[in-house]
């Protein structure tokens, strides 16, 4: 296990888009984090069922999407790019289907590289099927076997980077989030999710190593992004969602402790913290993922991105052409702008504009402010173990918000302010030890999870 006990990037000025201390070489001559930001294009099927009968149609869609995005990559002369193939449930449930599409995409990328010389790589994100059971077993059972087989077959079929949005601990976090129970949030992320990540990523890294490909990284999408979505819809306080973001970082770091080397997943907004700590490149998504979700992080998300992603877009027709091609164009222009700034020595000022443009509007954006990122990251590396790290990250995030409010950097509603008070109380009540925290979880949510699933 790798131990991160100090920051790889400890000055906020050095936390910059496109530049990573440990770049990742993969795919067809692509080096991620080498001083440029590259598009990571993601696409998915339009409304349809995936069955044996429709697999022909499924293949046709993926071929068409590849043809379109490659045409755009060539027309705009991108310096390099990543394609993410994010599996839908039936594609991991029948892992052979996922492998088949992986192979199809990889072949297109190879041909394109030979034709144009443009570097590229394929990330395959396997679906975590393991929460099919209630409570989820996570370490055993058919869904677990299929999920792991998904990785194996896709690695074989040509994936360059492996990823997953893993779900361990989510069954508890979902509940804690809904009740606004910060203690439960911290314990489910810092103990349960962290333990599951360590277990899972050890195996993913082993598979990646066996095939000489890249163990990429995970995303706390099911945790902090769920919170962000719900806050965006007025269902949860934004301050809670912001704190949840910080709380998710130690959990996602666990993948890197087990050998992941980045690029982390696009929807992992905890990415900048991971980058500061590990020095590995990250993928991020913001305004140009407007096809997939609305966001309070439209610009700031790009501040330290090495890959710039649209998260996901369906293969539907727009006036210009198909949507995946349109979003490939969008990402390419964004990256051009960032790269022009980097090349002309204006990278830091471009970053600062991106940061300043969002922070006054959103407490969730504040969490991605490079200065705050460095503070949170420090609190993590100076603590040991998922639970202690998570508690520390939450405390620092909380005071960063408090400070920003005090300094009128941003303002929040009175209803949100009440939640600051509630959270302050909660923070002071966190149990000292992991076992106290696990007890809290058992008392509150004992019916939705199993200790064995986490090796407890």
């Amino acid at each position, binding site marked *: 296990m790798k131990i991160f006990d100090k920051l790889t990037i400890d000055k906020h000025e050095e936390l910059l888009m496109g530049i990573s201390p440990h770049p990742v070489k993969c795919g067809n001559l692509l080096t991620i984090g080498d001083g440029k930001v590259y598009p990571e294009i993601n696409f998915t*099927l339009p409304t*349809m069922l995936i069955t044996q009968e429709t697999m022909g149609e499924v293949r046709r869609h993926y071929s068409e999407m590849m043809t379109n995005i490659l045409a755009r990559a060539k027309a705009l002369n991108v310096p390099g790019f990543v394609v993410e193939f994010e599996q839908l449930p039936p594609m991991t449930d029948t892992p052979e289907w996922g492998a088949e599409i992986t192979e199809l995409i990889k072949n297109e990328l190879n041909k394109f590289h030979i034709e144009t010389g443009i570097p590229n790589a394929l990330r395959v994100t396997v679906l975590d099927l393991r929460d099919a059971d209630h409570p989820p077993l996570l370490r055993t059972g058919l869904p677990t076997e299929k999920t792991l087989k998904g990785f194996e077959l896709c690695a074989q079929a040509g994936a360059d980077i492996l990823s997953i949005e893993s779900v361990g601990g989510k069954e508890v976090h*979902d509940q804690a989030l809904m009740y606004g129970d910060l203690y439960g949030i911290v314990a489910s992320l810092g103990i349960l999710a962290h333990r599951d990540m360590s277990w899972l990523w050890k195996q993913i890294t082993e598979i990646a190593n066996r095939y000489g490909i890249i163990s990429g990284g995970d995303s706390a999408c099911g945790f902090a992004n769920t919170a962000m979505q*719900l806050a965006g819809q007025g269902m949860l306080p934004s301050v809670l969602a912001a704190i949840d973001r910080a709380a998710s970082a130690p959990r996602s770091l666990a993948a890197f402790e087990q050998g992941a080397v980045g690029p982390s997943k696009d929807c992992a907004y905890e990415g900048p913290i991971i980058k500061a700590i590990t020095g590995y490149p990250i993928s991020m998504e913001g305004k140009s993922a407007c096809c997939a979700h609305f966001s309070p992080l439209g610009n700031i998300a790009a501040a330290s991105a090495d890959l710039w992603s649209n998260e996901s877009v369906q293969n539907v027709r727009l006036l210009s052409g198909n949507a995946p091609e349109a979003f490939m164009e969008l990402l390419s222009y964004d990256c051009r702008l960032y790269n022009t700034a980097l090349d002309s020595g204006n990278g830091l000022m471009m970053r600062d504009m991106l940061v300043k443009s969002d922070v006054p509007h959103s407490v969730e954006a504040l969490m991605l402010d490079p200065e705050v990122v460095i503070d949170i990251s420090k609190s993590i590396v100076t603590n040991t173990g998922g639970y202690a790290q998570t508690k520390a990250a939450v405390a620092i995030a909380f005071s960063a918000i408090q400070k920003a409010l005090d300094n009128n950097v941003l303002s929040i509603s009175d*209803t949100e302010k009440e939640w600051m008070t509630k959270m302050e109380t909660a923070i002071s009540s966190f149990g000292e030890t992991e076992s106290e925290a696990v007890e809290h979880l058992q008392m509150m949510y004992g019916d939705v999870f199993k200790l064995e699933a986490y090796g407890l």
Partner: protein
Amino acid sequence: MNELLNKLAVAIARGKVNQKSPFPPDMKGEFGADELTKQALEESVAPAAILNDGLMIGMKTVGDKFESGKAFIPDMLIAAKAMNVAMVHLKPFFDSGEVELKGDFILGTVAGDLHDIGKNIVRMVLTGNGWNVIDLGTDVKPEQFIETLKEYPNAVIGMSALLTTTMMQMETTTTAIKEVSPDTKIYIGGAPISQEFSDKIGADGYFPDPNKFAKHLASVV
């Protein structure tokens, strides 16, 4: 007496479960939904009045705050918890038929789909609006809806789906249900759904907002 129900409504809206519960801090030591409901029954307040003029008023208060951005789901959930405690005392009157809920509502996320946050909010809102919600959870196959319908033949059905690939399951499920029970009303929701889609698959309506949905249900049933 009227004042007692007012108190009960406040206890629900603030999520004060019982006297012992520490939450909310400023109501420490006061009676909660538990004690107040018991007291009302002892004072012979009609159970229907307790439900309509106490509990549901309380849920409406927090629901209105929620709609105007002055409350969040946790507030609604805590209120729902207080309401559940009160409902335990009312149960005998429901069983005897002395008091009636608005009706039965069978709810589930369709086969292949595990997203349940939206569905859970629908459950909470409908419960707070006086519906008996039977929540079948996620990954619910057509047969499960049909089986449950046998038990609650007059129930309205609600389905949720978040994936474009599982949306199509709504069609399969709607067709299957309407085949055995053409008069059953079926409503659908979830981020990728639209009214067009609802029309296309022969469902009875689409609602993006559970509160508006509850109002609609009240108006049609």
